[in-house]
């Protein structure tokens, strides 16, 4: 009886398993294999060399790119968390009627009706040397030289990430906040808890799973992104994915594959640490 039920569940999991094997595991295996190949200008040479990894792991370029990537990931995470948490909190606890809640929530998603790239590019005329921000600051007499760091800088990149990814923080946090039993908050109030105590001892711990899911989204998205860095950084800033992208565009697939494997391992390790902190499956 027990055994047959197990067999049934295997059958049910089979389609997904096949899809994942075919479209996830197999490509990654191919990338892994290619990362040991040799190459020249126009072709890949099947081989088993460690040179791709050797160059990658000893180059100071890699180190710099990783530091840069972690910086972007951390800053984006921090700000999307602060903004996302506040927004979700407002939606979940301050907006009383469910209708308003739904309307406001939908409003949050409006910018997502257009593509990522368009939302990103729309910052450029705003932040440029002769852009809206600089010209209004100058005409109001606050500055007399345009601020160059507004565009094609780390600032611009992190700003774009925050703009693009805050929603990924809002949704799961809002979701877990909506599950918090309101009686708990009332009980805390009755027991004389200060508002910040309620926040610290009830709301934050109970929305931990949402925070974690949002963090994973933001973190992995930023780690693997290159187009934001390319557009908002004006090509002079780089992260790990830009490095891989450069190599691909120059037909250096094995070097790119090695870069991808190392990035994959890094992200997986970070995720393992995150999952140690919270058992997401238990809390969902």
């Amino acid at each position, binding site marked *: 009886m027990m055994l047959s039920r197990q067999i049934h569940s295997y059958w049910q999991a089979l389609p997904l398993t096949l899809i994942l094997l075919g479209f996830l595991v197999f490509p990654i295996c191919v990338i892994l294999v290619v990362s040991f190949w040799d190459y020249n200008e*126009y072709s890949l040479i099947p081989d088993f060399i460690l040179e791709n990894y050797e160059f990658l792991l000893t*180059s100071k*370029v890699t180190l710099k790119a990783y530091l840069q990537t972690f910086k972007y990931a951390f800053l984006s995470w921090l700000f999307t968390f602060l903004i996302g948490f506040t927004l979700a909190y407002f939606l979940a606890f301050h907006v009383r009627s469910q209708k308003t809640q739904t309307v406001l929530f939908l409003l949050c998603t409006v910018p997502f009706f257009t593509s990522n*790239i368009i939302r990103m590019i729309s910052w450029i005329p705003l932040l440029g040397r002769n852009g809206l921000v600089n010209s209004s600051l100058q005409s109001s007499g606050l500055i007399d030289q345009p601020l160059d760091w507004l565009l094609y800088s780390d600032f611009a990149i992190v700003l774009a990430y925050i703009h693009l990814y805050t929603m990924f923080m809002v949704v799961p946090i809002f979701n877990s906040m909506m599950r918090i039993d309101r009686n708990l908050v009332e009980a805390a109030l009755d027991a004389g808890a200060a508002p910040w105590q309620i926040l610290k001892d009830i709301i934050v711990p109970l929305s931990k799973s949402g925070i974690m899911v949002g963090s994973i989204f933001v973190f992995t998205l930023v780690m693997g992104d290159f187009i934001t860095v390319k557009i908002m950084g004006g090509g002079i800033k*780089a992260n790990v994915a830009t490095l891989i992208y450069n*190599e691909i565009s120059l037909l250096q697939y094995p070097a790119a594959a090695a870069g991808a494997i190392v990035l994959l391992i890094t992200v997986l390790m970070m995720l393992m640490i995150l999952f140690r902190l919270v058992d997401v499956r238990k809390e969902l």
Partner: protein
Amino acid sequence: MKDKMVIDQVNQDNSSSVETDLKSPSVSRRGLLKGAAKAGVAAGAISGFPMIWAQNIKNITLRQFGTGVSNLNAIADKCKEDLGFNLQLTSLDSDSVTQRAVTQPNSYDIADIEYWICKKVFPSGVMQPLDTSKLKNFSKISPLFINGKLAPDSTIAQGTAPHTVGFVESKDSKRFATEQTNWMTLIPTIYNADTLGIRPDLVGRPITTWADIMDPAFKGKTSILNIPSIGIMDAAMICEAMGEIKYADKGNMTREEIDKTIEILIAAKQQGQFRAFWKSFDESVNLMASGEVVIQSMWSPAVAAVRGRGIQCAYQPLKEGYRAWGGGLGLASHLSGLELEAAYEYIDWYLSGWVGAYLNRQGYYSAAPSTSKDYMTPDEWGFWIEGKPAQGAILGPDGNLMEKAGAVRDGGSYWDRMGAVSCWNSVMDENKYMVRKWNEFIVS
């Protein structure tokens, strides 16, 4: 035009690695039917060309891909009108072109690529050489592409000069021949001499040398292009002009020369000399038009595009000379039979003048200058080729005003510009090393 054409053009940003397959069976079938219905009309249009396969021609769609510079819908329209078959165009940036040429050889029939790309792509065997005896207009091709010399006494510039990768030894050879043979890798179509673009209204002083891009006065207001094989050449022109490095051959640097060049670039980047690096045409136009940069590496039509917005922009001739590039049409190795014949017919037509004139009007040069002269007014020829002041308004190929009467082309005549080429775009022996170092520069 009576026959509605079937042309798709995809302008793809290099960010997207996803290729769109443009060939849609239903569309070409429709084109076929329409073509058959109007066979009489088409036959009239193509009577000037000897066509043994006029009846079958409607079936043919040649797929051409290449960089945006010469993948123009107007050329496909005219080709349909003159030759009767369809030309389907895809434009990509240089890197993606190289990648696609090698990795998806069955996705195109005709490759519209640059000579330095050809040096990378041809040895991989995805292309077949062209039999020059089948081209009527072969003799009209500029000697620049045959022996590398514009005039008999010219010196050959450094780098991958087109004639060095223009011929192979035999039909099946993948080795480049050292002299003219009957087998050409690419039939040259387009070329130009590149230099720095400037905003004369914002630089505030005369610009005379490549080294001016490193002037601290322009800190945070300069840009160079981030396509390693071209960017390194601009960098070499700059470093040599600064007097920092003397290259034996800028087109084929040694490791030490690469190291030193990149070192200078990194130092400049860390001091904030560069505002941005650009990869695509549009990026360079926007950087210049918005005033983010005032001096940068640029391509000729990008300068025209900035001017087209009513903003001052000059393609500044510099005392060290130009960095030149050239492109041509090559055949995919899978082409055979009727399609191969059509491709030959098309390439011969390309050289016959109309396209050349069209390209000349965009500020490029035609590979068969004498044929294109017949398709241009004397004023146009005087302005674009002879460097004379325009007598009347100079219109672009699309009919928009390019220059007013009295204007003179930046850099002067064809012979002044192409005669002052210091280096051709190239691929080096140390390419792999160079690309790594270039990456280091981009990341640092």
